[in-house]
């Protein structure tokens, strides 16, 4: 089963931040491959969702980029800023809280269904 993009969209920032926290620095393609690999292809981050999110994180000052010149192209490695590191903890905790709450909500719904 591949999860729908609607489900992934709300958690993408947190997922990217957590990956960067665990891997020091990553570039776009690497992020998509890593997510595919660790979720057994269940979550596939699209380019259309990933890059806008990375740009927003950069504008928020949560990540910075390191440029690597490969011939005629430039690879941008993203890494967390100190603010990004504390924000990651906050976002991950928020997501865990949310998942626990969702569990309760869905269990209640299942019981009443």
């Amino acid at each position, binding site marked *: 089963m591949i999860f729908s993009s609607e489900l992934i969209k709300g958690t993408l920032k947190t997922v990217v931040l957590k990956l960067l926290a665990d891997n020091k620095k990553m570039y776009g393609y690497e992020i998509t491959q890593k997510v595919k690999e660790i979720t057994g292809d269940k979550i596939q981050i*699209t380019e259309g969702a990933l890059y806008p999110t990375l740009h927003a994180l950069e*504008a928020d000052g949560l990540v910075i980029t390191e440029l690597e010149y490969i011939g005629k192209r430039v690879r*941008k490695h993203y890494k967390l800023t100190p603010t990004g590191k504390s924000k990651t903890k906050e976002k991950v905790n928020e997501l865990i809280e949310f998942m626990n709450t969702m569990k309760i909500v869905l269990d209640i719904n299942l019981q009443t269904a």
Partner: protein
Amino acid sequence: MYQLSEKQIDFILDDIKKRGIQIESLQQNLLDHVCCILENEMNAEDDFEKLYSNTIQKFYKKELFEIEQETNDLLTFKNFYFMKKVLILSGVATASSFVLGSVFKIMHWPGASFFFVLAIGMTSLLFLPLLFILKNKELKNVQEKLVLASAIIVGILYLIAVFGSVMHWQIAKPGTFWLITIGFSFFIFIPLYFFNGIRKPEAKLNTVITTCLFVIFMSLQFLMIRLHPAQNQIDGAKVEQSAK
């Protein structure tokens, strides 16, 4: 692993640009991403252009430009709340400046023009442009955006014309600015507003009523400026009277 040639990289970058991606940083991201995929999946005997075309198609639903739009939306959304706050603050400050300026003007106290300049400056440079940016985001089609843009222009022109007249600024003395404002409203803003609204069944009645009100208001305004004698006529009359 296949190694893309410089020519092939240039081809991809050109195509990304042609598809409407203007943010350089995003161009670099997409270029590197496509190159990574191609270099991992391509063999020397494969057709490069065909494989590229299949790969890039997976990046979007309708067109590649969606990614740039989404990026801009996320970046604008970040500033959305701040912009809204500035909009409210500039609205309050503008209204206060207008009221204070009017009181100063009626009481013949010095400083009325300061408040009017402040009010016009804030309205035309901050309040109305911000209103345009925030409202523009909510509008979907180009025609609605044009109506909004022309309404904002009329608003700015109208303000300058009113306060130009009140303060006897050179710019509005012969009524030229009024004619520009009214002309713009009659020939651009009102037709745009009317034809945009009349096509929507739910907005038909409101559009007709509002258009009538706009036309009546602008006609009265036109009548007022034509009835109001031009400064050179007043000066001429004064000279004539003193000669007698």
